[in-house]
């Protein structure tokens, strides 16, 4: 059992052992090489000395040959609907005995809720299709961890950039416990891949977000925005240093923050809109919750 989807021998993210009788729901599956899968699970019931905690999420490695988990024949998606409607298994998944299985059997349950675009929202981000990820994005944006991250970043920001956008963003993410601790990394552009090690996903890798999000104003609150810039930091052997910032969802000059704050994303300033920008949005990173 791991805290992040890293299963190397030297990765220091082992948190416990899953034992027979442990009850959990599979939140998502990431394909790995050789047909294996990294399963993100939500523990709902413990058995034996599992050294785990109920209601926490962990990562489990499932090899292609492994029989320890059998996915049953139930469809992966349950019926759509809000929690107000009578819905078999919706909203009360954990308490329903029909949805809990022993370790020899896994029930994959995806709770679907209808998403209505918020027409009054200042930002133009509006989920187009219902699905678990939309809810996870909303959970992320509204989480106390993101709020702590943003407050920390806004307290520390400078009047102007001091060329440490990536460092300031990392410090803020660590303060909000969105990453376990600060990690090394010299170029902001590499944050797009580095943050994936800590459970972040890039919305620009997935439809419909890839089509929906073309500029920072369309990203969800709390998203870590990664840009390429074409400006090298060759001393570090990186040909494109890039830029990184957090979308705070706040109005005015604090709407986007790194080592300084600004009312717009770096490639949406009035000057950029008018004359073009060297900064290209390549990552909209959020941590599904």
């Amino acid at each position, binding site marked *: 059992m791991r805290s992040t989807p890293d299963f190397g021998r030297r990765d220091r993210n082992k948190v416990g052992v899953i034992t027979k009788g442990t009850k959990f729901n599979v939140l998502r599956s990431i394909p790995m090489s050789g047909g294996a899968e990294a399963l993100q699970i939500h523990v709902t019931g413990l058995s034996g000395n599992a050294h785990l905690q109920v209601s926490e999420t962990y990562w489990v490695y499932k090899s292609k040959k492994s029989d320890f988990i059998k996915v049953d024949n139930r469809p992966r998606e349950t019926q759509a609907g809000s929690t107000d409607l009578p819905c078999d298994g919706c909203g009360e998944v954990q308490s329903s005995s029909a949805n809990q299985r022993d370790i020899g059997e896994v029930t994959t349950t995806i709770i679907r809720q209808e998403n209505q675009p918020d027409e009054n929202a200042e930002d133009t981000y509006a989920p187009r299709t219902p699905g678990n990820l939309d809810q996870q994005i909303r959970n992320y944006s509204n989480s106390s961890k993101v709020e702590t991250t943003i407050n920390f970043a806004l307290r520390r920001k400078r*009047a*102007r*950039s*001091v*060329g*440490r*956008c*990536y*460092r300031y963003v*990392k410090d803020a993410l660590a303060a909000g416990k969105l990453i376990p601790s600060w990690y*090394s*990394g*010299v*170029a*902001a552009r*590499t944050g797009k891949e580095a943050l994936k090690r800590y459970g972040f996903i890039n919305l620009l890798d997935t439809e419909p977000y890839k089509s929906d999000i073309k500029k920072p104003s369309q990203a969800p609150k709390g998203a870590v925005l990664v840009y390429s*810039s074409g*400006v*090298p*930091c*060759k*001393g*570090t052997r*990186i040909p494109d*240093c*890039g*830029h990184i910032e957090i979308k705070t969802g706040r109005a005015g000059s604090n709407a986007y923050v790194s080592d*300084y704050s*600004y009312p717009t994303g*770096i490639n949406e300033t*009035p*000057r950029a809109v*008018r*004359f073009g920008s*060297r900064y290209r949005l390549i990552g909209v990173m959020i941590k599904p919750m």
Partner: protein
Amino acid sequence: MKFLLLVIIFTTLNAHAADEKTVLSSSDATVHASITEIEAFSKKKLTKKDLPELKKNLSTLLKLDDLDPSREAVIILSESYNKNKALYDKALKSIENNKNKSQLKEIKNLLKSHYSKGNG
């Protein structure tokens, strides 16, 4: 009469808004023109003869500080600084005064560090 008054007020407000837009647009245009010039300069192989132009561009960086908090122009010049340190340090020293000393120090640190150490 009332109608005429309304027309006059409306026309005045529109003219004022247009003036504001013009002011904002001209500072954007100034920043854009300056950054374009600095970007062209950053690709030059510098000699001692380029000292006056270098001083002018460094002075421009100080003016841009209020208009562009991202300091995009400074980041662009970072590679040039690291290839011509002695010339840049001489130019920075010559434009330094009591008012801009701390600001120039920040700019110099950014010139030095972005190319060699990145922004992490």
